[in-house]
């Protein structure tokens, strides 16, 4: 049963993310991503699977234009957000609408927990009243199930938290800006199973209001959490389907071989 947020999304048919013939190259003729065309389903979790070097993280990073930090990386094709090419939008606008959570937790070391949650506002020079700040901090930390653990130590350094808590803090920091999309680059790779479970639950709750694309190295995790899955091999999109269908009866031999290898 979809939540209200999902209904709102579907009824308004907004926030659509489409990739058309997207290729990414690190040097001329060497492609990390080759002609990927896909329409991301809104209010759902889409997992990106594939072997190391298949281009999963590159694909994710190109969606919010993080690739532009490295001048040698070239992108061709079109990534559109609500029908508008993101390359014609301001990168700042793209990144605010499409939040990103990295593989390793990366709270800002010089800020405390409270400041970390609000860092998006501070960095974007959006001024808030004390009451607004408190509300955003509490809501964002509650969203990631961290509020009860840190509510009495908001002034402590973010680095005093465990790795799992730091990762949830980073998700809270991203959520505080209310992005429409969440890109998650294998967010549970560095944390223990209990925290992994919490983050998976969190993603499941978030999908009511957010479209989530997650890179998953762990196939069982991908099958557990995702509604849709795409399999990349050597930069090519081999298959994109409902995850239950793909994991049970993949249409392409290459997907089947990869899934079989991972299970074995």
């Amino acid at each position: 049963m979809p939540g209200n947020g999902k209904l709102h999304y579907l009824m308004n048919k907004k926030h659509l993310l489409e990739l058309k013939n997207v290729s990414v190259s690190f040097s001329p003729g060497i492609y990390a991503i080759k002609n990927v065309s896909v329409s991301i389903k809104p209010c759902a979790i889409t997992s990106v699977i594939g072997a190391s070097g298949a281009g999963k993280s590159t694909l994710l990073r190109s969606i919010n234009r993080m690739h532009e930090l490295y001048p040698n990386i070239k992108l061709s094709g079109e990534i559109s957000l609500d029908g508008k090419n993101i390359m014609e939008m301001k990168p700042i606008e793209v990144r605010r609408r499409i939040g990103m959570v990295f593989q390793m937790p990366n709270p800002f070391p010089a800020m405390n927990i409270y400041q970390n949650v609000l860092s998006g506002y501070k960095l974007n020079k959006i001024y808030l009243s004390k009451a607004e700040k408190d509300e955003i901090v509490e809501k964002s930390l509650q969203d990631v199930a961290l509020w009860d653990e840190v509510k009495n130590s908001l002034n402590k350094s973010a680095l005093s938290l465990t790795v799992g808590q730091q990762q949830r803090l980073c998700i809270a920091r991203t959520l505080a800006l209310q992005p429409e999309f969440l890109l998650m680059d294998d967010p549970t790779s560095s944390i223990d199973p209990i925290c992994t479970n919490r983050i998976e639950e969190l993603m499941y709750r978030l999908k009511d209001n957010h479209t989530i694309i997650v890179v998953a190295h762990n196939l069982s995790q991908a099958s557990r959490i995702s509604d849709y899955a795409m399999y990349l091999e050597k930069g090519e999109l081999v298959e994109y389907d409902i995850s239950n269908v793909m994991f049970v009866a993949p249409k392409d031999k290459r997907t089947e071989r990869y899934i079989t290898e991972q299970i074995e």
Partner: protein
Amino acid sequence: MISYQKFRIYIDKFFHVIVYLFSFIALIPFLSIIWTLLKKGLIHVNPNFYTQTSPSATEAILANLSGEIIPGGILNGICGSLYILLITIILTVPLGFFIGVYIHENRKQKFSIFIQYISAIFYGMPSIIIGITVYVFIVKSFHSFSAWAGSVALSVLMLPMIIRATDETLKSLPTYLKESGLALGASYTSVILRVIIPTAKGNLLTGLLISVSRILGVTAPLIVTTLGCSMVNWDITKPTSSITLLIWNFSNNPCMADMVWSTSLFLFIFIIVLNIIAKHIAWKWKITLPHE
């Protein structure tokens, strides 16, 4: 027949002895300098030494003849050094910092490479050459030795140090800090000012203090730019004294030779204190980054 294992133990012990011996030999000049400074320098240290300006040659000769302690102090040198240093910091730090950021962020751009080369050349440039150049362009043009000419000379020496300190500090920070700031939709400037600098502030300040302590000991460019002054001078356009200039002046006058040691001891302690503060800041403000 010595077994191979015992042979290795002997070799290990031998190298231990060599390392300790060489370390001790290296310490001898340092310890002897400190000992001489304390032994000869403490004689003239009294409250007047810090509150009075340097004595004239006549006062020094009379004191020597009567076997008394040379009157006067180094107040004009202390004030001059701090004044010149302050102007140097104002001229250098913002400029050096922004150039350091520019170099770090655009390492492969042609202009950036050019600046890196120039900075490297000036880093090792003999200070007297910079002094002479400033003398030709500023002192001769304005027909006066001045505090600001000295500051310009010291700035040229200090600028590459600040650039390098900034660049090295930024290099030590992981890329993910910048990426995570940008991923929140922040502008590049905002990430540098609000994420990178606060994280690196300890190292940046340490770099500044170490540069200052190195600049404090520079004498040659000041001889040809600020000249020196027997009074405390706060006029930026007039000749000004400094601690190193006083050491130079005292050493040129046999009657004031004793003052050299006291002034050198003061400078030595001042630089040691600066270094201790730098180490303390580095330790106190050290931020252990995740994934280190």
